[in-house]
């Protein structure tokens, strides 16, 4: 029959292990709180429709850049209608500009190219441009944006 050595060694090991675990847990929590101090909490997001003016303000085939509550957008009117794109390039956050001659959005930083539907067609951008919803009330155009 085996003899169980429930001796001081094992007891000491267990109690030290529990203490070490507790200490690490406490220190970890503290470190996490300090990290939270450095990372600011995101602001609550609201959505609102911003009036950008009459549809006639946007000429056909022309991209109009504007800043709506901190969102840099470009409103583009094509044969299919009016669309609002975020100007933020999906690659690394530079601003795209509408090139009328090429009928494309171009990003000057890493030569990203998007077509008129916002699709990424050349260069490093991984996904299409972000779009904002455009609402038409009467002749007036509104863009739904997040405001913080």
């Amino acid at each position, binding site marked *: 029959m085996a003899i169980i050595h429930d001796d001081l060694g094992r007891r000491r090991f267990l109690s030290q292990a529990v203490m070490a675990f507790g200490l690490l847990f406490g220190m970890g929590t503290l470190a996490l709180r300090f*990290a939270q101090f*450095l*990372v*600011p909490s*995101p602001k609550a997001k609201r959505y609102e429709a911003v009036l950008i003016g009459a549809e006639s303000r946007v000429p056909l085939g022309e991209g109009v*850049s504007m*800043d709506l509550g*901190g969102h*840099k957008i470009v409103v583009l009117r094509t044969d299919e209608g009016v669309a609002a794109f975020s100007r933020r390039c999906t*690659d*690394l*956050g*530079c*601003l795209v*500009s509408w090139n009328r001659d090429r009928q494309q959005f171009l*990003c*000057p*930083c*890493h*030569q990203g190219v998007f077509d008129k539907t916002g699709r990424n067609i050349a*260069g*490093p*951008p*991984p996904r299409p441009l972000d779009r904002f919803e455009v609402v038409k009330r009467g002749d007036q155009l509104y863009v739904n944006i997040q405001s913080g």
Partner: protein
Amino acid sequence: MESAATPAEHRAGQKSWIDYIQKDLPAHLDWWPYTLGAIPLTLFGLLVATGLMLTFYYVPSPEKAYESVEQITHEVYLGWFVRGLHKFSVDLMILFLLFHVIRVFVTRAYRPPGEWKWVSGSLVLFLAFAMGFTGYSLVYDNVSYWGMTVVTSMLGSLPVVGTPLLYLLRGGEEVSGGTLLRLYDLHTKLLPVLLAGLVIGHVLVVRLSGFAEVPGSRGFHPFYPEHALTMGAIAVGLLVLLVDLVMIFPPTLGPPANPQEVATDVSPPWYFSAPYMWITLLPGPVALWSLLAGAGIFAAYPFVDRVLSERGWPMALVNGVVGTAVVLAVAALMILDTRM
């Protein structure tokens, strides 16, 4: 491999700290490529001095930053000179750090007992790049504003750590005044302290672990006065060169930051132009991961070398080929950047 006892160690059975400073150097260190580490060290001292002077005028707020740099460049007595010294010292420091790295790599001076010389040195190099990026953002002209946006976005695209890191650096979702303040704090407080600590650590490791044996190098020469004099002469020559460079190419300033319009040419400083071209040519995740993998292999290279040479690879040849290939690739990317 045991490093041979130097004459100084034979003289004194007991070593005091002065013996470590006085420790004799192998004779091959007379040859100038083996003094390349002292040049960035000198320049680092100059950067700390001129950087401290610049902080007396620089204001890290989006409204005042550009204006204060302009004031330093055009109004403050010798402001252009201090700023020019700071700028050229960075350029030369990184240039000579790269030469130093190439020399160590080609001569495989990281072999035992020098692994930690290499590892600590590679951290110094990475931190020097981080200092370059943060410093360049502080100028707050349009190129530096968009450079700041691009680099923080790039770090933000890393998996898991990316988003918290982005918030940590930007102090919010967007590049703002908080971002400038954070980069300023990194550039003038956290990074210099880390860098100084690492540089001291690197020099200590070099002094304590000694030098790898070089075939044909016999005899020793004392650290003081011979080697110290060589380094002193280099430092004085460097200062003359720097003053000339600043006089010939006084620092300039681009148009102020414009969050509404991207600068037409967002090319970063020369030491970032190769990775900049790399991320332009390759799809985002591939480019970023390959850069990170490259940095990882670079930092752990002594251990890679050990594993490969145990399997019979001719590492002297491998290093020659790899070193040449990397230097040529970087040069090609830099030339491509100037043409686009």
